[in-house]
């Protein structure tokens, strides 16, 4: 059947037509081999645009279609569907991207038009050789993997588990809870964070549909939407969690004290420890890095083991359930899931990067998370606001936008610092008699009940000063500044440079991407936006999906957000995962590799390079075969084959060479 090609050039309003001469491109397309009709139209993706294609297929007997418009990730499915509706195999369609590749990248009309012509020509030459292909359907595994056990992961896990589907929840720390477990009260309602979080944690711990893998990290992700294979490393905890009752006796005996990271190093924990009092699961772990016995074993010495043996002289017995097991090793757990939700959270900005604020140099300059632990009645000071010397502060400065809204650190607004700083002001008024100064640039109280909270703080007597402090110093210029921390700033509303002596400074540190975001992104194939956070598929209309089908994101790994937004997004991610799982089947690309058995030498190189284990070796015929259900059409085997025996459907040599020829025509 002789190819009869139709070419359609889209204006995309003025997005393309503003730079590319669409009529000229369409006129040029008419001269290309096999092209029977070429048209340009304002919006090809609109109903009338699609109708135009369908009509031409029916009336002019077109059997190939090229649309020159936006990116295939945007509208390839739309136009393939239009072809299919008109009775044409959707793989007889080819797209030329003249928006992202032409009009959006230059203002030069001539250059843009020339390039558009070349791309249209390439597409027309290519489509000439297209073959009809059939899409295949594969079953979707109904299980979901959730990575990250903060409030986002917890919420998503509960939603999915409650619907009757199985969830694997992987958390790096020994307990779920995330940053929310560290917070004291939550704005603007001032609910106690633990009081609203721990019931959810307990539900996760006891839910029959949730398999909790704490103190574990995902190591490898393979497969594709509906059929992911995941390897999880369960780190050795040196405790048999089936025997441990979480009584905590061992944590009292252990003689090794180390800074407690959960308490932001304001307190200490032992080498054997429980993450925090309400930990779920309620179990202890031994920190191998600091445990005397485990470190001793490396040098062949049998040290300590007091947690196991107890201290005989004092009549203290060790672990009574015999749960301590120094021989435990890391374990690899393999999971099969259909959908993945990544909810890996955030990292707090490192305030020592801003030298002039003195964090790390002055004793009483704290980060926001440190203060959360200090003000918490379960925290290291029992909820007492104390200076390093034990005294109660008389004046306290709260500084907003530390590391946020600053080109040198993070250009974005972290969205929570205004509100949590005002919450601190309230807690300080409640717990101390100190004067509280709040230094802000703009108060961003955008959420439900937030502006009301701001009004309440104004009336409670917190002094709001508009101005970003220039520096914190201990150099006194006046007698009343002696022994104090002095905040120097411009009161921008009064137009005066001023200095206020205080005893304590709390830095409203911003939120930034986790340190290992790059590795995690690569593992799950999620891109990052300019700010470093994970990139959603569409900022407005697809906020929890990613460019990888079947992988969703929720919470602060996507952008800084408060608890209400995190919970809403996590629920949305759960809905997306469920909507996928409940479809039962998913269509996969027909563009798969095929091996020509006549040419295959049986060297098995393709088998070793295939990332989807889609290639198997037929021992009887001594040739390799592709399992089309597993093949993702990545093309690795095609490049690897030394005998040129493998070709990729829809990306054949013939098609690609024609495309190049067209581009250069």
């Amino acid at each position, binding site marked *: 059947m002789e190819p009869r090609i139709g070419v359609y050039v889209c204006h995309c309003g003025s997005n393309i037509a503003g730079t590319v001469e669409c009529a000229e491109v369409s006129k040029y397309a008419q001269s290309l081999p096999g092209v029977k009709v070429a048209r340009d139209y304002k919006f090809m993706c609109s109903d009338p645009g699609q109708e135009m294609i369908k009509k031409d297929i029916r009336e002019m007997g077109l059997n190939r279609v090229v649309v020159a418009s936006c990116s295939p990730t945007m509208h390839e499915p739309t136009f393939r569907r239009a072809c299919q509706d008109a009775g044409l195999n959707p793989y007889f369609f080819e797209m030329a991207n003249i928006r992202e590749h032409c009009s959006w990248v230059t203002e030069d009309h001539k250059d843009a038009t020339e390039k558009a012509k070349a791309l249209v020509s390439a597409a027309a030459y290519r489509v000439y050789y297209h073959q009809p292909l059939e899409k295949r359907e594969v079953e979707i595994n109904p299980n979901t993997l959730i990575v990250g056990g903060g409030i986002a992961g917890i919420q998503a896990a509960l939603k999915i588990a409650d619907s009757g589907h199985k969830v694997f929840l992987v958390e790096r720390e020994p307990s779920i809870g995330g940053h929310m477990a560290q917070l004291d009260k939550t704005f603007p309602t001032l609910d106690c964070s633990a009081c609203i979080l721990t019931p959810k944690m307990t539900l996760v711990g006891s839910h029959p549909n949730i398999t909790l893998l704490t103190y574990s990290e995902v190591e490898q992700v393979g497969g594709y939407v509906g059929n992911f294979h995941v390897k999880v490393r369960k780190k050795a905890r040196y405790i048999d969690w089936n025997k441990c009752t979480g009584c905590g006796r061992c944590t009292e005996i252990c003689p090794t004290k180390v800074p407690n990271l959960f308490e932001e190093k304001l307190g200490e924990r032992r080498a054997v420890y429980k993450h925090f009092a309400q930990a779920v699961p309620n179990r202890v772990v031994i920190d191998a890095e600091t445990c005397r016995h485990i470190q001793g074993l490396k040098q062949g010495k049998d040290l300590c083991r007091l947690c196991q043996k107890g201290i005989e002289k004092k009549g203290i017995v060790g672990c009574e359930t015999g749960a301590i097991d120094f021989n435990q090793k890391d374990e690899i757990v393999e999971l099969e899931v259909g959908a993945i939700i990544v909810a890996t959270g955030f990292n707090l900005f490192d305030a020592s990067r801003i030298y*002039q604020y003195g964090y790390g140099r002055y004793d009483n300059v704290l980060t926001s998370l440190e203060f959360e632990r200090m003000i918490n009645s379960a925290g290291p000071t029992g909820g007492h606001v104390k200076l390093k010397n034990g005294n109660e502060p008389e004046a306290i400065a709260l500084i907003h*936008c530390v590391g946020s*809204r*600053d*080109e*040198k650190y993070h250009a974005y607004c972290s969205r929570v610092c205004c509100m949590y700083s005002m919450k601190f002001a309230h807690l300080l008024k409640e717990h101390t008699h100190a004067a509280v100064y709040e230094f802000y*640039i*703009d108060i961003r109280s955008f959420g439900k009940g937030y502006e009301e909270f701001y009004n309440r703080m104004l009336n409670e007597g917190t002094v709001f000063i*508009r*101005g*970003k*402090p*220039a*520096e914190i110093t201990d150099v006194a210029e006046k007698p009343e500044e002696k022994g104090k921390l002095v905040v*120097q*700033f*411009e*009161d*921008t509303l009064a*137009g005066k*440079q001023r200095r206020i002596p205080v005893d304590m400074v709390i830095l409203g540190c911003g939120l930034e991407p986790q340190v290992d975001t790059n590795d995690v992104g690569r593992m799950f194939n999620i891109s990052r936006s300019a700010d470093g956070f994970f990139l959603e598929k569409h900022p407005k209309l697809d906020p929890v999906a990613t460019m990888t089908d079947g992988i969703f994101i929720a919470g602060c790994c996507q952008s800084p957000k408060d608890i209400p937004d995190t919970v809403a997004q996590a629920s949305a991610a759960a809905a997306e995962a469920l909507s996928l799982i409940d479809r039962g089947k998913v269509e996969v690309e027909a563009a798969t590799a095929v091996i020509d058995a006549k040419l295959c030498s049986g060297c098995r190189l393709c088998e070793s390079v295939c990332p989807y284990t889609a290639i198997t070796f037929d021992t009887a015929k001594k040739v390799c075969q592709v399992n089309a259900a597993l093949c993702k059409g990545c093309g690795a085997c095609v490049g690897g084959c030394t005998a040129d025996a493998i070709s990729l459907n829809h990306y054949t040599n013939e098609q690609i060479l024609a495309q190049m020829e067209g581009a250069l025509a």
Partner: protein
Amino acid sequence: MNTFIDEVKATPGGENVLACIQCGMCSGSCPMANQMEYAPRQLIAMIRADLKDEVLSSNSMWYCLSCYLCTARCPKGVKPTDLAHALESLATQQGYRTRGNNNPEMYRAFVGSIKSNGRVHEFGMMMKYYLSTNPFAALKVAAVGLQMFIHSRLPLKATKVKNRGDIPAIIKKFKEVRSK
């Protein structure tokens, strides 16, 4: 050019004036803020309010010490130090005077000395400066000048560089580049 903002933006150093979020980091850091009529942040607000006469006849930019603390700390990359020099340049070019401020005369004497000698001749430069401002003020520094003269640090005759004829070409090129 329609507004003062456009004028400032078109002057080298004034390009980023619209990026300011008025946080006050510059004024809070400025060691001279208390001497200035308008501290840096306020000056930027006034530029954006189109208050050209008030800005260009103020003493603010002339008090800038070029310590660059504001520029180092500004969260939006406004570069207030460069902005101050841009304002000095605009004020001088357009004949704005600030009471008690002789900096333009100092700059002219300095550049004049370089134009004719290819390097600074301190004695000639200071003579020119005091003659164009207040000749009696020279008495205040006479003692220092005398000491420098005794130690051969203040030659009366200017030493000139080789190829002095190239200097006008260099200045011409600079003006060309700057006007782009």
